[in-house]
């Protein structure tokens, strides 16, 4: 995938004329701006010499106004363009990031927290953008303002006066560069103290019954007060540093002014420079302090952005570990024969094989049931089929084609899947079911919902299919989520359907309805059902029993019962249990 540095370079190249234009306009604005003190100085001299009359005064005034307006217009123009361009890059960077994430496999997301990834997408991208828009503006502004001010003072005032007066303010960028990161560090610590307090508050209120029942309110108050005191201490640490910076910078300016006043005044009294030059110089001095201060900030901006770019680079250069092989072909229309012949499968981050010695064959159009205890490898096994995790080459076949040799797109098109947790997006129920098929009609969605015995649930919602699920909407029960996920998978109507323990949270009657619907709707197509309750698989054409990563029994329900092994044992246990609940 793209390296963000190259991305940045390409972006610059692509927009080189835009950038040239905006930088040019900022530079032009500085050149205009430095005329301001010069004009005032000239005006002062003219006034002193008695050369100013009505029309001349008007001319000076208009010139001053023109310079003021010209500067603002030019600088504003450049600033706006740079800001817009920076935001466009921010947009493109986020887009690249998301597209990249879409290519990465489940094992990648298993190893990382969503919070960390979000942090990259928000803060790292933003700090690059800030450097690109604000940083660039300020840098251009500061460099050229500094340069043109110096040129102006050298030319019109006095090189020596300028150099001597500048000594105190040259310190400013270093001061900012040094104190800036320290202030940021202190601020971060203060933030941590603040979130410590919030955490304690949450902890305490959540356990309020315990606290009340143990008369522990006073102790909690003490603990809370400790946290609040820590905040005060940390905040004061921030303010000690920031106050230092805030008061030292103007002081350096004043110091420079004292030098200018003494030396410049002396030069004026001894008539080495005219009064106008002195006046202009004091104004220039005031203009110098801001860019110098900003240089320090820009330095910090770029430092942060460079660290962010590095992190983004690591992120974007991550290679997708599940991808089309070089000579991958599209899977021809699928009949649905599945063959698994696996010596061993080990997770990329695992040490011991999660599956070993598995040999399963499902004829096209048949139903396979998979049972076994928690952790026996059922989910791992079915995850190999749509290549959520990659099986070793030559172990998993559909219609005789190795899944590793076909394109991901065609493979996944042939498979529909219901995850264990019934993962739904927080959009409407209709959009969730319709997720598997773009442009599905409402009738199709309702039919899929009916097959999943979810239609009666939808009817209880006043907004029907438009009911929003999740955070800001209706909270669905585990069973309802599973049924929605089943409807979603059925809408896709793929040659192979996998249900990964997706009936665990629905009640017995609903399970019966769904199984019956499936048998009718999926006639002639391959279905793989993982189940905890045997009632969901007993009608399957073929059942395999997994234990500790391998197939221990296989056969039809009757065969397995007769055999009297693990399956028969689970069956006996569950029958008594059902006697109670039913």
């Amino acid at each position: 995938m793209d390296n963000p540095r190259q991305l940045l370079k390409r972006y610059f190249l692509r927009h080189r004329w835009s950038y040239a234009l905006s930088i040019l306009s900022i530079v032009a604005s500085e050149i205009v701006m430095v005329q301001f003190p010069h004009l005032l100085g000239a005006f002062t001299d003219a006034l002193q010499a008695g050369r100013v009359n009505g029309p001349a005064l008007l001319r000076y005034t208009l010139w001053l106004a023109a310079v003021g307006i010209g500067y603002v217009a030019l600088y504003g123009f450049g600033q706006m363009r740079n800001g817009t361009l920076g935001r466009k890059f921010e947009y493109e960077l986020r887009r690249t990031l998301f597209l990249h994430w879409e290519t990465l496999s489940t094992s990648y997301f298993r190893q990382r927290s969503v919070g960390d990834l979000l942090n990259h997408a928000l803060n790292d991208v933003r700090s690059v953008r800030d450097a690109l828009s604000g940083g660039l503006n300020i840098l251009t502004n500061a460099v050229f303002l500094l340069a043109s001010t110096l040129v102006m003072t050298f030319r019109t005032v006095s090189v020596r006066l300028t150099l001597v007066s500048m000594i105190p303010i040259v310190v400013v960028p270093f001061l900012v560069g040094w104190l800036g990161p320290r202030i940021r560090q202190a601020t971060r610590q203060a933030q941590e103290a603040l979130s410590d307090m919030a955490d304690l508050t949450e902890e305490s209120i959540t356990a309020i019954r315990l606290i009340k029942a143990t008369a522990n309110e006073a102790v909690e108050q003490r603990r809370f007060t400790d946290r609040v005191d820590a905040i005060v201490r940390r905040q004061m640490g921030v303010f000690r540093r920031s106050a230092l910076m805030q008061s030292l910078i103007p002081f350096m300016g004043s110091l420079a002014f004292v030098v200018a006043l003494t030396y410049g005044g002396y030069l004026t009294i001894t008539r080495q420079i005219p009064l106008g030059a002195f006046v202009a110089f004091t104004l220039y001095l005031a203009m110098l302090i801001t860019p110098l201060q900003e240089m320090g900030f820009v330095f910090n901006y770029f430092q942060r952005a460079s660290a962010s770019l590095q992190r983004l680079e690591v992120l974007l250069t991550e290679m997708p570990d599940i991808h089309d092989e070089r000579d991958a072909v599209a899977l021809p229309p699928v009949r649905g024969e599945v063959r698994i012949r696996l010596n061993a499968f080990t997770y990329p981050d695992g040490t011991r094989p999660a599956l070993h010695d598995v040999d399963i064959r499902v004829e096209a159009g048949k139903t396979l049931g998979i049972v076994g205890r928690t952790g026996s490898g059922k989910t791992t096994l079915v995850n190999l089929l749509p290549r959520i995790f990659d099986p070793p080459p030559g172990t998993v076949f559909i219609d005789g084609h190795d899944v590793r040799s076909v394109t991901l797109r065609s493979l996944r098109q042939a498979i529909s899947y219901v995850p264990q947790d019934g993962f739904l997006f927080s959009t409407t129920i209709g959009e969730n079911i319709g997720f598997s098929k773009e442009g599905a009609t409402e009738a199709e969605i309702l039919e899929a919902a009916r097959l999943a015995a979810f239609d009666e649930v939808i009817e209880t919602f006043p907004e029907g299919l438009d009911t929003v699920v999740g955070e800001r909407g209706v909270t669905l029960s585990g069973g309802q989520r599973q049924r929605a996920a089943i409807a979603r998978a059925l809408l896709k109507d793929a040659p192979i359907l996998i249900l990964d323990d997706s009936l665990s949270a629905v009640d017995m009657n609903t399970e019966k309805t769904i199984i019956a619907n499936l048998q009718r709707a999926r006639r002639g197509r391959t279905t793989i059902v993982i189940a905890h309750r045997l009632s969901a698989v007993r009608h399957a054409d073929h059942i395999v029993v997994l234990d500790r990563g391998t197939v221990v029994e296989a056969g039809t329900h009757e065969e397995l019962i007769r055999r009297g092994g693990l399956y028969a044992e689970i069956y006996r246990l569950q029958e008594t249990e059902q006697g109670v609940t039913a």
Partner: protein
Amino acid sequence: MNSLLRLLPYARPYVWHFAGVIVLVLLYNGTSVLQPYLVKIAIDEDITGPHPSVHGLFVIAGLYLGVSLVGLVANYTQVQVLQYAGQSVIRKIRVALFTHIERQSMRFFDTNAVGRLVTNVSSDTETVSQFFTNFFLSMVRDGLSLVLIIAAMYRLDVRIATYSMVLLPILFGISLVFRRRLRERYQATRTRLSNIIAFLAENLAGMRIIQIFHQEQRQARAFGELNDAHRQASVREYRLSVMFNRTFELLGNVAVAAVVWVGGWAVLRHAIPFGTLYAFITYIRQFFQPINSITQQWNTLQSTIVAADRIGKVLAVEPDVRDPEDPVDLTARGPIRGEVAFEHVSFAYIPGRTVLHDVSFRVPAGSFVGFVGATGAGKSSLMSLLTRFYDPQEGQITIDGVDIRRLRLEDLHRVIGLVQQEVHLFTGTVADNIRLFREEISDEAVRAAARAVGADEVIERLPEGYQTRLFAKGANLSMGERQLIAFARIVALNPRVLILDEATANLDSKTEALVQRGLEAVAKNRTTLVIAHRLSTIRHADEIVVLDHGRIVETGTHEALLERGGLYAQLHRKSSVEAVG
């Protein structure tokens, strides 16, 4: 606004700090205003005056340096004092708010979400703190700057000063309009950014689903739309802020030109010396900063009022379970025996929906009583009344013959201990979790308590034993281990009466045995009331109370109840089948 004023008493102890800030701001502003004035004197008298004097110039320069130094010190001190005072006020408000929340009865927590309360304590107070720091400072400093600048201008020349005043309403007007719209756009950008965050969080978590249903392109398109909406909002916000800043700058530059025009004429007519014009040019530039800053604080004030309102609403709630006026001291009458009695108690969480009907029973001191019944039969409500999480509408509850409403809550809660189904852990060490951070419970007592319930072994096996850090959310203990810690807590606190809400979670047989032994250890020498979910727990209870729909339907020992063949016998039959499954 009123809610903000009601928070002012918290600032009272720091009134001198705030006064000090005003003095320091005066001093600092004085030095700022003095600086151009000193230059004016230097120009008019020492440089261009009839008797130019290098010595005079040096004196002025020396003064200038001194004034700057005073300014430096005043500014630094001011920030420290103000922030200290502001932080201290917020500290007081936070502690008061937290204390107030913890004092509330359970009814309050039933209706207020934890997340909202946390927001009140952490971020609302943070917002209010800006009132005591930024807002206060801006009013003092910027208000003062404006006044001083205006005064200085009028002292120099009334006519030019009056012309300059035209700027005031214009600047305020422009600034207010811009600021309001800026805030709107800022919020629009924020909203759209949080849409992006929500979308990403969900899609990263569900990437598997997207890939299996090969909907990458569709989701990329959806993300593109959100991303683009954010970009547009962000660009709009940025453009407006550039417009605002540049407009202000433009006005400043034009104002200087105008001063040159007006002042220039005055100098030409010898109405004012040149130094005055110079000072005017400096002052007019200084005019803009404070106005900009004041309008910015207007926004701050608005969000502060909203936050103060929210805090005020919480502070206004009076706890409905309170200490009595003249409490009875239980210990004054000799050792507490721990006899519990309910007398004709009726209770409803919501008026009209009674959950307990005329419940009466007596638990002799030191006995072990079990409560059984279906979910919703009222078992938990009984216990919530005994701990006074709620007060009953009718009847009374007594301990050793004293109505619990006549006891101080703290005294009551020292007599009664509670073990809940769900064990809450706090961020801290295992030892702290057992002693609940109470300093008066020694490490020895903690160990003894753990030993008594058989938690000792389990704890010693943890990486750092009693000093192992636990986390409230990251459950690094198993359910059984958590239960044992909860038992150890009770032994360490040593209440006379114990309420135990048995955990429903299924434990493996080894832990089950450990927990059962722990329970027996805890119950020893105490009056124990157990809400049982497994009937085996209370098989040997001195008495079993069977509840149904908020009424007591049966009481007696295990054997007596079985013989009777009522609800208990029915429950027992069902549960023994379940135990097999």
